[in-house]
């Protein structure tokens, strides 16, 4: 069945802001954790894989959405990665969020993923950097 429901800019911005503003809940700044393996089936599921490292968002994490696109403010690099492995997925948390309180997740690879690493091999003690992250609320 065709999906003819479309969102206007006001709705797209409201939705995108609602998503990214959740990162500023609890005790900001929010964080992004990187782990090995495939992402869990559901965001509410416990994390799997090895925790490789954590990036901290700014406070607030994102700027206001424009035309349905919210862009992250500066994301601090992890300068001492926790473990070595191939980054497989990431999860978002508020600063005080526990593991099963993840806000969002996505897969990580070198291309075609929700988060693309130029080199997705993580080495313990090294730097994990995220230089750009946007959330886009589509028209439909």
């Amino acid at each position, binding site marked *: 069945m065709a999906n003819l429901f479309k969102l206007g800019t006001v709705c797209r911005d409201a939705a995108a802001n609602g998503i990214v503003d959740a990162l500023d809940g609890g005790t900001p700044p929010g964080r992004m954790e990187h782990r090995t393996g495939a992402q869990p089936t559901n965001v509410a599921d416990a994390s799997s894989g090895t925790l490789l490292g954590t990036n901290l968002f700014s406070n607030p994490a994102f700027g206001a959405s424009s035309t349905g696109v919210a862009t992250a403010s*500066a994301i601090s690099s992890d*300068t001492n990665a926790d473990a*070595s*492995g*191939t980054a497989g997925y990431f999860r978002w948390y508020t600063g005080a969020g526990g593991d099963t309180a993840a806000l969002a997740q996505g897969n990580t690879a070198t291309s075609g993923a929700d988060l693309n690493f130029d*080199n997705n091999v*993580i080495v313990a003690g090294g730097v994990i950097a*995220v*230089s*750009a992250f946007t959330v886009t609320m589509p028209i439909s």
Partner: protein
Amino acid sequence: MVTPRIGGSFAPSIDEAKLATYRTLAESAPDMVRVEMLKLCDMVAVFWETPRSTLPGTPHPVGQVQVNGRVISTWVTPLAQEEIDRIWDHVPWSSAVPGEHLNECEALGQLFGGISNETNKPLRDAAFHLLWIGVELSKDREPLFSDQITP
């Protein structure tokens, strides 16, 4: 429209002493891990035989990153063609493979991913450190280590 979500990884630097330690760790590893780690150790040794590239730098694909509160512009130095040719046989390839097949670097990542972080962390760290260097060299560039970008 491409939605930019970009990340980058920068490993600690490596010296001859660390490489020697990695060889020792590899010698006691299970068969396939041992074979592949020793090949990567040889790759590093061969790479070190010539001076660093002096070609003009180009922006690292990750762009500007924030490290310890400072914005760092990351650059990479491409390898000269003769150097690429010289080390070619030692560097695992990371190019995409048609169909749902792993490239060599991805396959090594799966192999090393089987090393326990809980019970064999030194070996796992060594293996992935070598693989990280292999991925960098597969992109025909000087590896950009974490100490080069950390203020």
